[in-house]
């Protein structure tokens, strides 16, 4: 157990170092994020201006704009479109080499893919944050709603990281069935993006599905931390939110491990 932990930490270090290798790619990702956010913010401003008095939004314009920035900050977390390296290993059959390590493959990949996420997160989010602060007036990022809200936001981001890593590992485990191709993983990923609030804040969805939206697993990836940041959820409400995040992480870990152990029984290592 202690050895596994040490090995995973070591794996985490080496993978994070490796993912920092491609700084330019991270930077270009950040530029995409920034431009996308500006477009989104513009669209929201237009909507809110012309809907003045005619519609009753559950989020104020300021909150929606802050939400958009926070969402882009956390976007790298959502990169659970399976770690490129793991995907490469599955396709080329190098997964055989991974299986020759005295480590549980699940935790091995969990450490690797979460570390890859940290690398992109640091660079990309750093650049987005800087842009959010520098962009003037209405378009820029606003300060968090309250200090307790901000602290809970940070805690919630930690949980979101765990949740996304667990989901990413599940996606990788599903991908181990190589003959399926990428189809199933892309479906899972798209579902995750939509339901995490990656396209539209969940609180702007119709009222009658709000409860369901809040308790589904993907809300914890972006929407819950973002709510705490913009203050559309009060700090006092945070505990059940965090429990939702942690609970779903546990579920994803359990299912991921199950799927992987079943897949490994009939894994086929391709190539000579």
């Amino acid at each position, binding site marked *: 157990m202690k050895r596994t932990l040490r090995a995973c930490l070591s794996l985490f270090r080496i993978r994070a170092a*490796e993912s920092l290798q491609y700084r330019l790619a991270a930077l270009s990702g950040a530029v995409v994020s920034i431009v996308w956010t500006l477009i989104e913010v513009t669209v929201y401003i237009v909507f809110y201006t012309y809907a003045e008095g005619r519609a009753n939004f559950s989020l104020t314009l300021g909150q929606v704009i802050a939400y958009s920035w926070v969402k882009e900050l956390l976007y790298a977390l959502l990169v659970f479109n399976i770690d490129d390296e793991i995907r490469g290993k599955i396709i080329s059959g190098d997964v055989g080499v991974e299986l*020759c390590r005295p*480590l549980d493959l699940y935790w091995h990949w969990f450490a690797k893919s979460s570390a890859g996420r940290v690398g992109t997160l640091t660079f990309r989010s750093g650049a987005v944050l800087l842009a959010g602060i520098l962009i003037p007036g209405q378009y820029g990022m606003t300060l968090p709603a309250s200090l307790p809200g901000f602290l809970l936001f940070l805690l919630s981001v930690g949980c979101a990281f765990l949740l996304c890593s667990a989901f990413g590992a599940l996606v990788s485990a599903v991908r181990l069935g190589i003959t399926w191709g990428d189809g199933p993983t892309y479906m899972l990923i798209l579902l995750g993006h939509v339901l995490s609030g990656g396209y539209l804040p969940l609180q702007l969805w119709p009222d009658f599905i709000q409860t369901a939206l809040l308790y589904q697993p993907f809300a914890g990836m972006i929407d819950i931390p973002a709510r705490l940041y913009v203050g559309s959820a009060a700090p006092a409400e945070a505990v059940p939110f965090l429990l939702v995040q942690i609970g779903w992480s546990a579920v994803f870990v359990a299912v991921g491990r199950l799927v992987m152990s079943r897949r490994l029984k009939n894994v086929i290592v391709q190539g000579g």
Partner: protein
Amino acid sequence: MPQIELSGIRKAFKVYERPAGRWGLLKGAFKREVRSVTALDGVSFSVGEGELVGLIGPNGAGKSTTVKVMSGILTPDAGSCVINGRVPWKARVAHVSEIGVVFGQRSQLWWDVPVSDSFSLLRDIYGIPRERYESRLGGLCGALEVDSLLKTPARQLSLGQRMRCELVAALLHSPKLLFLDEPTIGLDAVSKLALRAFLKDENARSGVTALLTTHDMDDIEALCSRVMVIGRGKLLYDGGLPGLRERYAAYEGQDTDEVIARMYEEEAL
């Protein structure tokens, strides 16, 4: 008791085939034909501790599959396999901590980081105590002459350099058993000779059992006291190289490659 004991190992793979013909592509999207290809058809052998065994056979004969079964990656359909008293695919983690593997066509080094980082990761993965790791690394690096490469990222190594580093990586945890799948593929004469000399030396010094697959008969001649020939998923020959010559050579002193080619022809492989 032998270190490796295989008996009656069978493994078949499913191959999906698209119907041929003009509409094959479209039809294939809905209906696929499944064909079963037998990779191993009852392979049995045993290997004792400290042996250096060569595994040869034409492409697609089942060599790599055999190695994969023995290293616990593949679960065979039938048959039994006990290595160091364990069934590889059942006690995978315990099993692989005692074996080392080198797949000539795959790499276990991290592409973008210095080789030494890959090594220290392996130290943590195998839980090697620090002092033992340092002395082992020093010894291996000296013997394989890779001291100067430790700070180089794997992507900047030549194939020969990389293969030597792979060997260091496979032996760091002092495994009892070493599987080498085409370790000399694509190497130049100097690297090949260095690799062979090292393997022979390591075997003599630490008594590691090594099982290698290869297409290079010189590897076998230089290293292995015992050869196994696999063809069509079956073990066709198991014994010394001289015995193989005796059975298949057309004339005295015929080139080993020719002898092997003749054998493959005769056995209709």
